[in-house]
């Protein structure tokens, strides 16, 4: 365990800091083993790894939905614990600053109509009705789904559901966006749209953390990559272009097939120097 | 077993609706207590699940249908109070969208299937699965037995509700205004359908799912069995009887019974209806397959009518209702007493509401 000084973040302007976190499901299936990482304000960070390496678990820890068995998590200079989030004031602050877009939009959209779905977060934040209505309309317009407002989410297509899920998070105006496999199961055009949106949001100052094993979109979606090994530890942490060049490492963590340069990587997208 | 609107008098509907209010309140409180963690979606899931199970009806010519309910399965997986909420909601959706079971009759239907069934069934399950590890082959059998008994308890209740109608609500010339079948007809018919057919389905479904989960998804079983060891072992502190509130519910029902008393009229021509020898005479014409059961129940419960003179229909109602409830109560009490005696300071299962969160 690498626990540093009690209440001091390791880096001065780090927004989210995880130190020596370990987590096991049902106390017997390890998902995180002594993981330390931090995210600076305004960064685009990708958590990379094969299926079951723990990146989704780490995302849930960052979202304050799971709490490490060992180690600690600090967000916005405050220690995040299960007990701490029982406090309504702290929970409201934390939840409104951290937005989570889940991999499965099916799970994310659960309200009877799209409008209610998007209003769910602001309602829980206790905003005024007028402001909520305004924000909801703005979010609908921003994601170009005004015409879906009164539809039931289960009637929507996968891409439409993803838009609704993202709108329902953006409406709360979070500082940090956590996304689990955001481009998985989306068609090509929707993927492009989503990538553009995330880049735009990042340019507007939002911090973005995403878990993925899709290497194709990384050059645009992440400045930095944190790579997980299959034994649930951090294998490396560095700038995207450097990580992507390290074929041996990527093969070792099962992100590309061993002994063969990934054709997609070899296809020659521009590597930033 | 879904009683549609039109089979029960508004008075009966009112009584059962009123009886369910405290049950729902308690169930809501119990479920809400653990809501802050992750049970709301699970309860909703249970409701959808029960709905699916109930969707498959077999018509049985006695005024009802036979089908599995899944209430005991949900009680085993999520706890009896969650089952109350889940099955009630499944019944509400069915009543609203599929006309399967009435809206006014919702109180009666939920009393039978969402209250009596999970409580009785879970009681039986707990009794039979005492000191049994989570993966023991005895556990699915216990769950199946609970489901079987629970379903039949529910069927019996609905038979009593239906069977009381012609005796209490009929016009001057003896025309039954609601369900036309008497207790002597509704009870054997329901019992027959559920003891054989639907009970078997319920047993197979519940035992089968529990057995499957033992093999394939133990964590799901652990939700409501936190303190139960996976393999043979022993532990756990004494527990509050989960039936305490069930008993309160039944007691409430007894107290509320008079609310439903709206005397259907004065001295009606009840002679043909309640003439004992004539009744027996007609029973001889009932097909032999039914005669045995009919005769049995006929003798056992006819005292409950208590209105032979035709002059005290209200008292007859009260007495009949009390008899019906007493039988249900006896079932619950029997299970309760047995469990308590056997348990005595040892309890393997951890109840839903005491689960650490």
């Amino acid at each position, binding site marked *: 365990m690498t626990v540093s000084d009690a209440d001091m973040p390791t880096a001065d302007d780090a927004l989210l800091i995880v130190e020596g976190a370990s987590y096991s499901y049902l106390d017997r299936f390890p998902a995180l083993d002594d993981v330390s990482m931090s995210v600076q304000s305004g960064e685009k960070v990708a958590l990379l790894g094969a299926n079951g390496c723990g990146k989704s678990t780490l995302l849930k820890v960052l979202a304050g939905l799971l709490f490490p068995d060992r180690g600690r998590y600090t967000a916005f200079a405050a220690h995040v614990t299960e007990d701490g989030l029982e406090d309504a004031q702290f929970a409201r602050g934390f939840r409104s600053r951290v937005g989570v877009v889940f991999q499965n939009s099916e799970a994310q959209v659960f309200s009877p109509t799209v409008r209610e779905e998007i209003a769910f977060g602001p309602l829980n934040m206790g905003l005024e009705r007028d402001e909520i209505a305004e924000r909801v309309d703005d979010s609908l317009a921003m994601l170009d789904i005004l015409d879906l407002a009164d539809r039931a989410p289960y009637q929507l297509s996968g891409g439409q559901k993803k838009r609704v899920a993202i709108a*329902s998070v953006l409406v709360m105006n979070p500082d940090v966006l956590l996304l689990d496999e955001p481009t998985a199961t989306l068609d090509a055009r929707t993927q492009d749209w989503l990538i553009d949106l995330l880049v735009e949001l990042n340019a507007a100052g939002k911090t973005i953390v995403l878990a993925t094993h899709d290497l194709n979109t990384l050059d645009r979606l992440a400045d930095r990559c944190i790579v997980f090994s299959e034994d649930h530890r951090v294998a490396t942490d560095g700038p995207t272009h450097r990580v992507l060049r390290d074929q041996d490492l990527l093969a070792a963590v099962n992100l590309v097939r061993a002994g063969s340069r990934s054709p997609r990587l070899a296809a020659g997208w521009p590597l930033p120097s | 077993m879904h009683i549609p609107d039109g089979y029960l008098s508004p008075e009966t509907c009112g009584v059962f609706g009123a009886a369910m209010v405290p049950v729902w309140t308690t169930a809501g409180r119990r479920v809400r207590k653990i809501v802050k963690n992750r049970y709301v979606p699970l309860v*909703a899931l249970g409701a959808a699940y029960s709905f699916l199970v109930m969707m498959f009806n077999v018509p049985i010519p006695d005024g009802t249908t036979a089908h599995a309910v899944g209430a005991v399965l949900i009680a085993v997986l999520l706890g009896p109070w969650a089952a109350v909420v889940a099955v009630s909601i499944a019944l509400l959706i069915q009543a609203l969208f599929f006309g399967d079971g009435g809206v006014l009759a919702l109180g009666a239907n939920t009393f039978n299937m969402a209250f009596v069934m999970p409580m009785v069934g879970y009681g039986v399950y707990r009794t039979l699965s005492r000191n049994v590890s989570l993966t023991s082959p005895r556990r699915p059998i216990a769950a199946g037995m609970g489901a079987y008994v629970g379903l039949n308890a529910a069927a019996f209740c609905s038979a009593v509700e239906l069977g009381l109608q012609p005796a209490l609500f009929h016009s001057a010339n003896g025309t039954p205004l609601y369900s036309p079948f008497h207790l002597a007809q509704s009870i054997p018919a329901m019992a027959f359908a559920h003891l054989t057919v639907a009970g078997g389905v319920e047993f197979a479904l519940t035992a089968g799912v529990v057995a499957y989960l033992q093999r394939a998804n133990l964590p799901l079983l652990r939700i409501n069995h936190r303190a139960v060891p996976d393999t043979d072992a022993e532990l756990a502190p004494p527990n509050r009887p989960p039936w305490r509130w069930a008993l309160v519910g039944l007691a409430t029902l007894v107290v509320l019974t008079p609310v439903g008393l709206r005397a259907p009229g004065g001295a009606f021509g009840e002679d043909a209806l309640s003439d004992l020898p004539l009744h027996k005479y007609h029973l001889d014409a009932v097909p032999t397959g039914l005669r045995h059961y009919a005769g049995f129940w006929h003798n056992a419960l006819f005292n409950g009518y208590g209105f032979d003179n035709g002059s005290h229909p209200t008292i007859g109602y009260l007495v009949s209702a009390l008899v019906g409830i007493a039988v249900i109560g006896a079932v619950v009490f029997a299970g309760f007493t047995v469990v308590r005696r056997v348990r005595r300071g040892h309890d393997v299962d951890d109840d839903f509401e005491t689960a650490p969160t």
Partner: protein
Amino acid sequence: MSATSTTPKWLLQHEVGLCPCACIGKRRKGGVIEKTTSGAAALLRQTLFSEDVAGERGLLQRLDPRVKVLSLLGLLVVTADLRHIPVLLGMYAGTLALAAASKLRLSFFVKRVWLFIPVFTGVVVLPATLNVVTHGDIVVPLGTWFGHHLGLTEQGLRSAGLVVTRVATSISLVVLLTISTPWAKLLAALRALRAPRLLILVLGMAYRYLFLLLNAVTDMYVARRARTVAGATDATSGRLLVAASAGALFGKAQTLAEEVHLAMVARGYAGDARSVTAFRMRLLDAAFVLACVAAAVAAVGVDRLLGR
């Protein structure tokens, strides 16, 4: 009633096999699968279709859902109290008129209601017309059986008519409500009428899960069928299949339930259900309430006049 003299048990169990979830009887699994999948598909279509009707601009669709819920519930209570077939028929005609005013195709509406009045409601009340069940004055003698007179009684016939008309009217009222109201509005109306928050919350989620579960059921059976050669499997394997798929379904859905919960918590959910919907009563609503009250008073009045 339900059994003949010496029916062996196995024969009765074979009947049960008609229930798609039973698999107790000696049935080929193909039947089970067909029934389950087609049942699921039909259910989906039906419910989806009802949202289409709710989108029309008819009388009921324009009412405040709260008004609609209360009015139709009131009429339901009145219907339950009526004791004369002609009055009940009048009420039934009223529901038809409402359906027409709400731009419902009458043939569709009638079919939907009578589909729900399960065919067996008729079957159920038939024996009640016999003097064996309902004693009284025999109007249609059917001869003798084992030396006893057998026949349809006036009381039995009337009782059967009462039950059938009342059930039809009740179901019509409920169908009118649900078919003319989008599910979300119905929930909001219940919430506005002070239904417990937990109820609304679970109800809304359960409704959603239903669609997911139905899809999952269909997928699972289709997948299974693809792997099954012909229909020649024994009952035990059928039963195992049903139990296993029921179990797998629950497990699958439980994972989803946990995800939904996390998604809710991540957006600040702390156990309260809140809503943005606000309703407004209009003149039309007031007029509708008045009309319902008038209809109720008239029905009860006539019913009493005809005697109790």
